[in-house]
């Protein structure tokens, strides 16, 4: 209803949408025509410029999709996607909220009056001053005579000091943000105002950012000491501050998500700090490498620019964008998770996460393609270089894919009526969008979609690049690594859906499936030890069995040396490649589990519907309450009393 209202009365907006759709469509067509013309002119698609052509095809696909989306929206086809009312016009309302978050104002008032801010501020200043003092005395005691080098050393220590202290102060300001509201019983007051869950999270996030900004501003006088010595430019400082702010965003989003999920502040503090530590350790692998290069720098005028000087601009772009992007995706997922948690329990809590994951994957694929472009085409690729990249990409993607396979299919077995309505609305040409809606079976479908998109995209791209490397190697890698991994993940998703259909909660089903699939993944490795211990034909059987582990499959995909596939000798004298056995086992189990899960879910839903029907009829029977006849007398003639078709309890008894 609201969708119709929205699309009917706005001719200007529809016109703009149609125009944008047309422009994007023309762009897409041009890019396709260009690719076809290149292919026809050169006589072959598989050649040097293939990477560029693929990128063009990608751009064409994206703009084509955008064009279709704009036109569909302008014509009102997407109204089914938005079933609930949103007050105000979305865009200017969002800007308004982002700029003056009432939560930010209140948090700042309370914070600046409290002791926490003052104490942590003093602590930060003391630590930074101490770090600079120690760095200065060490530099003075050493044989370092060049003032520019001293300036760099001081700046470097300031950099490390500020990042470490800030990253460990951030959780203190955001990990109790939502638990205190819950414990202080103010959350309900807040959620019944017209503020939205994401605005609550955004306000809390902003206040953490503002605190860190205040800290950094007050640290400025300290860092000016470095400028006395030279060797550091204000540009370096700006980049450092931006980097710290960005890390603040990521770390505080994690703490906020934890705080939204915890009931008590105590557990939220512990979990937030543990997660922060893990993130810092992972990220420091990158930053240690950077700062090592940075401290030994001196190749350029600016210290940070020195690190970059060794690369050309395209590589610099990738080096700077990729880590930021990883952080950004962590931030987006946590932000969505935190605001999902504040929605009513029966609201749709996973569509935004699914969309974020898909966008993340698409951008990953884009960067993967970009890295090919940066290398300058197939001519420069060392033999076996791309397969290595594929394997690395797969190893990075596999845990993420596993997590997704555990999380999404394990969602609510019984869909809340509102979400079920929303899903039903996505009919006709919009049916494929159902993979983004919650539910165990759509979760399974989403996992498969995600796998095909991710691993399929990687494999496709890789196989194009591998044309020069030979067919054998391509087949080897795909068959021994990608296929078992994909099938294993589909099986995982089916197991999670199955647990969910047995009445496990969302988290319980995910955890149980994690346990089972962890045993499946790492269990066969134990067989390896047994195979060493015993001799004879049994040993080789055990050896073959351990190939069932997807971990082994992935490792074996890496080490291609022109060898043939390992094969299993069947009783009839038949030799079957090992990967085929693995693939067969996983396909059979995933199909079986999927079917079982589907049946279970259907049965559970049917039972649920029956229960609901039974509940509504049983409530119309007289209740065993002696006062009921009296109540029924009152109920009827009240004028205002309830509808006639739903008699109150015990009206028959009157």
């Amino acid at each position, binding site marked *: 209803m609201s969708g119709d209202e929205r699309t009917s009365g706005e001719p200007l907006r529809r016109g703009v949408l149609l125009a944008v759709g047309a422009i994007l469509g023309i762009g897409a067509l041009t890019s396709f025509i260009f690719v076809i013309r290149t292919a026809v002119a050169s006589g072959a698609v598989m050649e040097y410029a293939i990477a560029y052509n693929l990128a063009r095809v990608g751009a064409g696909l994206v703009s084509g999709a955008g064009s279709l989306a704009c036109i569909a929206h302008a014509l009102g086809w997407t109204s089914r996607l938005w*079933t*609930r*009312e*949103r*007050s105000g016009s979305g865009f200017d309302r969002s800007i*308004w909220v982002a700029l*003056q978050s*009432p*939560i930010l*104002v*209140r948090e700042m*008032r*309370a*914070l600046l*009056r*409290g002791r926490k801010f003052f104490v942590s501020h003093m602590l930060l200043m003391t630590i930074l001053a101490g770090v600079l003092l120690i760095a200065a005395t060490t530099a003075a005691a050493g044989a370092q005579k060049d003032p520019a080098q001293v300036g760099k050393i001081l700046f470097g220590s300031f950099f490390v000091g500020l990042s470490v202290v800030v990253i460990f102060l951030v959780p203190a300001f955001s990990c109790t943000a939502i638990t205190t509201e819950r414990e*202080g*019983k*103010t959350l*309900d*007051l*807040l*959620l*019944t*105002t*017209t*503020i939205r869950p994401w605005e609550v999270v955004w306000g809390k996030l902003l206040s953490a950012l503002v605190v860190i900004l205040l800290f950094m501003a007050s640290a400025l006088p300290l860092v000016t000491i470095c400028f006395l010595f030279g060797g550091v430019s204000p540009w370096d400082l700006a980049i450092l501050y931006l980097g710290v702010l960005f890390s603040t965003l990521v770390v505080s989003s994690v703490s906020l998500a934890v705080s939204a999920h915890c009931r008590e502040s105590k557990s939220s503090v512990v979990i937030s700090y543990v997660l922060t530590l893990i993130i810092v350790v992972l990220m420091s692998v990158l930053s240690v490498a950077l700062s090592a290069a940075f401290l030994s720098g001196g190749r350029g005028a600016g210290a940070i620019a020195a690190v970059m000087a060794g690369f050309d601009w395209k590589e610099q772009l990738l080096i700077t964008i990729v880590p930021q992007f990883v952080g950004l995706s962590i931030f987006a997922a946590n932000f969505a998770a935190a605001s999902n948690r504040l929605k*009513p*329990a*029966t*609201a749709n809590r996973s569509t935004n996460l699914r969309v974020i994951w898909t966008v993340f994957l698409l951008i990953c694929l884009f960067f993967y393609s970009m890295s090919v472009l940066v290398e300058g085409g197939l001519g420069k690729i060392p033999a076996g270089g791309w397969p290595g990249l594929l394997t690395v990409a797969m190893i990075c993607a596999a845990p993420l894919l596993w997590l997704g396979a555990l999380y999404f299919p394990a969602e609510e077995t019984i869909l*809340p*009526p*509102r979400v079920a309505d929303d899903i039903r609305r996505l009919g006709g040409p919009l049916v494929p969008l159902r993979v983004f809606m919650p539910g165990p079976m759509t979760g399974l479908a989403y996992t498969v979609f995600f796998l095909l998109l991710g691993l399929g995209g990687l494999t496709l791209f890789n196989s194009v690049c591998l044309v020069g490397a030979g067919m054998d190697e391509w087949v080897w890698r795909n068959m021994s690594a990608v296929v078992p991994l994909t099938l294993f993940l589909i099986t995982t998703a089916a197991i999670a859906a199955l647990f969910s259909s047995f009445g496990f*909660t969302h988290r319980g089903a995910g955890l149980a499936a994690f346990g089972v699939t962890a045993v499946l993944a790492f269990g066969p490795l134990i067989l390896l030890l047994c195979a060493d211990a015993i001799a004879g034909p049994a040993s080789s059987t055990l050896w073959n069995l351990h190939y069932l582990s997807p971990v082994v499959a992935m490792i074996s995909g890496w080490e291609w040396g022109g060898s043939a596939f390992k094969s299993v000798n069947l009783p009839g004298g038949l030799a079957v490649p090992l990967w085929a056995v693995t693939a067969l086992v996983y396909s059979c189990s995933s199909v079986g589990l999927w079917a079982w899960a589907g049946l279970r879910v259907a049965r559970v839903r049917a039972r649920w519907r029956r229960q*609901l029907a039974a*509940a*509504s009829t049983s*409530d*119309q029977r007289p*209740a065993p*309450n*002696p*006062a*009921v006849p*009296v*109540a029924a*007398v*009152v*109920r009827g*003639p*009240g*004028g*205002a*009393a*309830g*509808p006639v078709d*739903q008699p*109150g*309890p015990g009206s028959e008894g009157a």
Partner: protein
Amino acid sequence: MIDIRGLTKTYENGTRALRDVSFEVEEGDIFAFIGPNGAGKTTTIRVLVTLLEPTGGEAFVGGEDVVRYPDRVRHLIGYMPDDFGVYHGVRVWEYLDFFAAAYRMPKLQRRRAIDDVMALTDLSPLRERMVESLSKGMRQRLCLAKTLVHDPRVLILDEPAAGLDPRARIEFRALLRTLSGMGKTIMISSHILTELREICNACCIIERGRILASGNVDEMTEKLMPVRIIMVKMLNKAEQAAAELLKIDGVLSAQVDGRNVRVEFQGADRQIHGLMKLLVDRELPVIGLEEKERDMEALFMRITKGELA
């Protein structure tokens, strides 16, 4: 103004908190929502204020579906939970300003609204006080002020008077009357009944997730407790008066108690006049006639536990 139809709510653990709850609140009513602890009052209210989604049934506030258009409903209602907290480290006016801003009121309008609600709830002298230093009664007022700050048409108050001293309670009742006079629809849940009888004009009794009775309080009392107790005070001749009264249609019994006659009577007010007229006509020295209040507590006991003892 509030319309609930066949509402059911089953929690994840299988508890059926509401079973086919239906009632209606007219615009301008002060509506008492009465039930023992754990009857489903708070669950119903949480559905109405869009914090909880029902398993089945529908609920409308001001004609808007609470599940489908929660935003519109939130503009219409002011909600005061039974157990609420306050933000620490802010002043009274800042606290109200925060909630007004959360309802997206522009700055100027906010200032005016805060002054108005503070005047209404007598908080003006405490304007600059820190919220955490307020007493329980003051916090209750503050929460009510917060509830009123966006000028809602419907007030939904969950056990608002719990834990207040008698004086604060009386003041609170007066405040509710003022609000009702301003044309607001008020829904109050409570298990303390006596305080509601005087101010509410409609009520609904809920027990174990079912509505036992609902409607206008006077009509309900009329139907559920048809017997009225009338104390007739005589100068003398009480025995004779009792004998005369027993002859009247509708009088069930007349007991002499010193100079008083306790009459159990079934009928409308007009018939009470007839009763008095009779005594005067017979020249019996009647000096007073008083009807005993049929209070809600008795009504509640009668409905929830069968016959009144």
